[in-house]
């Protein structure tokens, strides 16, 4: 087990170096934050003065050397726009994004798994296609379109729910629905294929031989086995929810890191952009590793190996 974790960490480290280098150079090609900070009639001297204050002067390679020197000590620089250490800005907003994710996954599973089971039970039949259609609907609807519609219907017209921002539980409903529906298709499909695989196996036959009711056979014996691949989806989905939350956080004014990444790109806030992407990669890698280890507890075959 230890050797495996070590190898994964080493691979992660290489990935981080690659990501950091790419984002450092890519970012600078997209232009300069100073143009966005100066009023449109600023004089050229104002511009050079500001560039100096922000430390963006000097050849790009020197800047890269300084960046690497500081990054090694964990200092990823000050965000130009937020005027605070980029790492701090990231961790200020991270909980807001993370808090949405478990609910979205829960919603995705609550809808996806039953649909998957129903589809597997009626394979090839009408219900299989119906469940498939409902599940795929989540992937088919563009999330920002869905978000805006939900706000219009449930908040403005019906007035049941607040239309945006963080706050009490009622604030969570619409963003979680928007994020969650996107996952339903994934959960449905993996549950369906896992169930089909399990339903053909011998111990299910034995369960029926014991005279257990069909429901117990399906919902206890089969489903419990089908949950193992479902769990590995968490790792994949959490990663995607983090990178993909830009749209939902924009529509629902949710101050998460998705929105932070978008602003960092739009305002060319290089230090913040570099910090966000590096920290995000670390986060996703550790989550994948975490799911792997958690996986051992779900599948007894691994736990005691």
């Amino acid at each position, binding site marked *: 087990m230890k050797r495996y974790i070590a190898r994964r960490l080493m691979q992660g480290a290489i990935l981080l170096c690659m990501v950091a280098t790419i984002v450092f150079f890519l970012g600078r090609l997209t*232009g300069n934050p100073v143009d966005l900070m100066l009023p449109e*009639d*600023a004089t050229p001297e104002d511009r050079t003065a*500001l560039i100096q204050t922000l430390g963006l002067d000097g050849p790009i390679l020197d800047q890269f050397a300084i960046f690497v020197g500081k990054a090694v000590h964990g200092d990823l620089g000050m965000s130009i726009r937020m005027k605070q250490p980029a790492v701090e800005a990231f961790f200020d907003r991270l909980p807001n994004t993370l808090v949405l994710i478990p609910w979205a996954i829960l919603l995705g599973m609550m809808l996806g798994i039953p649909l998957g089971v129903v589809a597997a039970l009626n394979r090839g039949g009408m219900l299989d296609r119906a469940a498939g259609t409902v599940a795929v609907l989540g992937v088919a609807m563009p999330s920002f379109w869905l978000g*805006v519609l939900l706000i219009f219907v449930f908040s403005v017209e019906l007035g049941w729910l607040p239309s945006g921002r963080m706050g009490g539980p009622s604030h969570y409903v619409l963003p979680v629905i928007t994020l969650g529906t996107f996952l339903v298709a994934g959960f449905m499909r993996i549950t369906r294929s896992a169930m089909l695989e399990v339903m053909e196996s011998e111990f299910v036959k034995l369960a029926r031989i014991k005279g257990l009711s069909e429901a117990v056979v399906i919902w206890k014996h089969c489903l419990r086995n089908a949950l193992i691949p479902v769990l590995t989806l968490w790792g994949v989905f959490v990663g995607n929810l983090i990178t993909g939350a830009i749209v939902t956080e924009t529509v629902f*004014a949710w*101050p998460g890191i998705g929105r932070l990444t978008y602003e960092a790109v739009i305002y060319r806030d290089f230090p913040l952009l570099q910090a966000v992407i590096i920290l995000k990669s670390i986060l996703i890698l550790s989550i994948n590793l975490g799911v792997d280890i958690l996986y051992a507890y779900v599948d007894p075959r691994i736990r005691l190996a």
Partner: protein
Amino acid sequence: MLRHIVTTAALAVALVAAAMAPAQAQDQKGTLVFAVESLGAQTLDPILEGRPGNAVYQAAMYDSLVGFDFAKGGVGPGVAERWELSPDGLAWTFYLRPGQTFHNGDKLTAHDVKFSLERQMGPGSLAAAAATMRRTIKNIEVVDDLTVKVRTTSPQIGLPAGLSRAVAPEGAIMPKTYIEKVGEEEFRKKPIGSGPWKFVRNVPGDRIEFTAVTTPHWRGRPHFKDLHFLLVPEESTRVAMVRTGEAGIASIGPETMLGASRAGLEVLSVPGTMQAIFQFYGTWRPEVKDSPVAKVRVRQALSLAIDRKQVIEHVMNGKARMPHPFATFGYTDFFSAERWKKWADEAYRYDPVLAKKILAEEGYPNGFELKFANTALPGTQFMIDIGTAIADMWTKIGVKVTLKHYEWGSFPPLERGDQAQLIGWASMYRTAGRPDAPWRYNGGFSPESTQRLFGDKDNCNETCQEFVKTYRALGSELDRTKRTVLTDKMVELVSNSWIVVPILEGMGYYAINTKKVGQFAPIAGRHELGDVFERIPRPEQKPWKK
């Protein structure tokens, strides 16, 4: 039994205390919630925030050395009641308003003004005009507690305007003793200002909260108890929040305006906040000498081809006005506004027939190729729509327009250097509503400016020379009437060149929930409402008259 007595006693005490609380605090109730597109850098230190951010939320807690003329717009009395220029034009003396205090009780004196201005020019400041201030200001002398003298290296007519929020943010007054006592770091966490609102809380990426000052304030004593700024990037969400009452006011654009008014929200428009313009780059360059855009009358024809009324009616839903000449508004200083308004109404009329005739006369009977760069500051999506509308109108008179779209961040690099990609192009642009026209003209037309629309240092034709001469004269002209004559001359030079042509005088648009906010008037030219919140009444005090 004992517990029962204790509770009733506590209740009695509470009632008495409430009654004794200062009478005025009674009428400060409720929370004014303002949903806004962006909170800029969301920092409460004036030297770290750019113009928009300062004007939106820092304005609430900081006063500016020079203030607003609330009625007409433009410059008015602020922390300094009045100011005068020394006969030689090299020193401005500001006489401060007595009895001003910071939120922690310290008195606001001339020392604070000197400290604030020097801090704006200091090394750590990201203020846009820091370099210019360092260049033009020689030294700042505290004459007495209420008088400050600012000596300049050369006559600076625009200095007071530059220190008022109507033009630039560098005039914010910061507490000297407090900052020196607790240090910059602590100041940024718990900022103190002299404005009508005290700082409460700053949640990054989400909101900033203030609470009202209970003592009277020259900008007006707040009618609400609390003021919250909410960061809501998505416009349709902002409108939804105002409709559900989660927000009292929200900044909107023309797109959502119709929906908002139909849904029963009040739509407020702040007059004279910006001009949507189109301009031609590098028309003076030798390599475009014989191209159509190099000819003045062709450029004028393109202006005549635009039905500004229809753009105002359909793109801006009627909430915009026919423009004054480039970068000038009703409230521009030293400028004969009425004369130029009449000129503009006639010059910017819709006359496609004449336009076609001019094109034919100039040798382009069936039009010509024109490349048109369409771009817009973040949050002003309607600029793209205006660009699309006028491109369509130009095609109607035979001009074959190729529209190329640029994200705002990617446009400035094209202007700098040899402007290779923009020569002979038309492009959408905008100019912010400001009372001092010369600064904007210099930014667009002087040979050293980034845009260099008249010509650069090497080839500056006679109009360009004429402009530089007029601008230099304006810089040192102390006499008011002569200044007006010079400004009119400069405006005439630019307007007749048809290189920069205003399309419409745009407005700031806000959706208001009349059950949450009472009637109030914005400050002309002041797109961000920053200096208005303290005068906004509660709905029960002054309901919106239909």
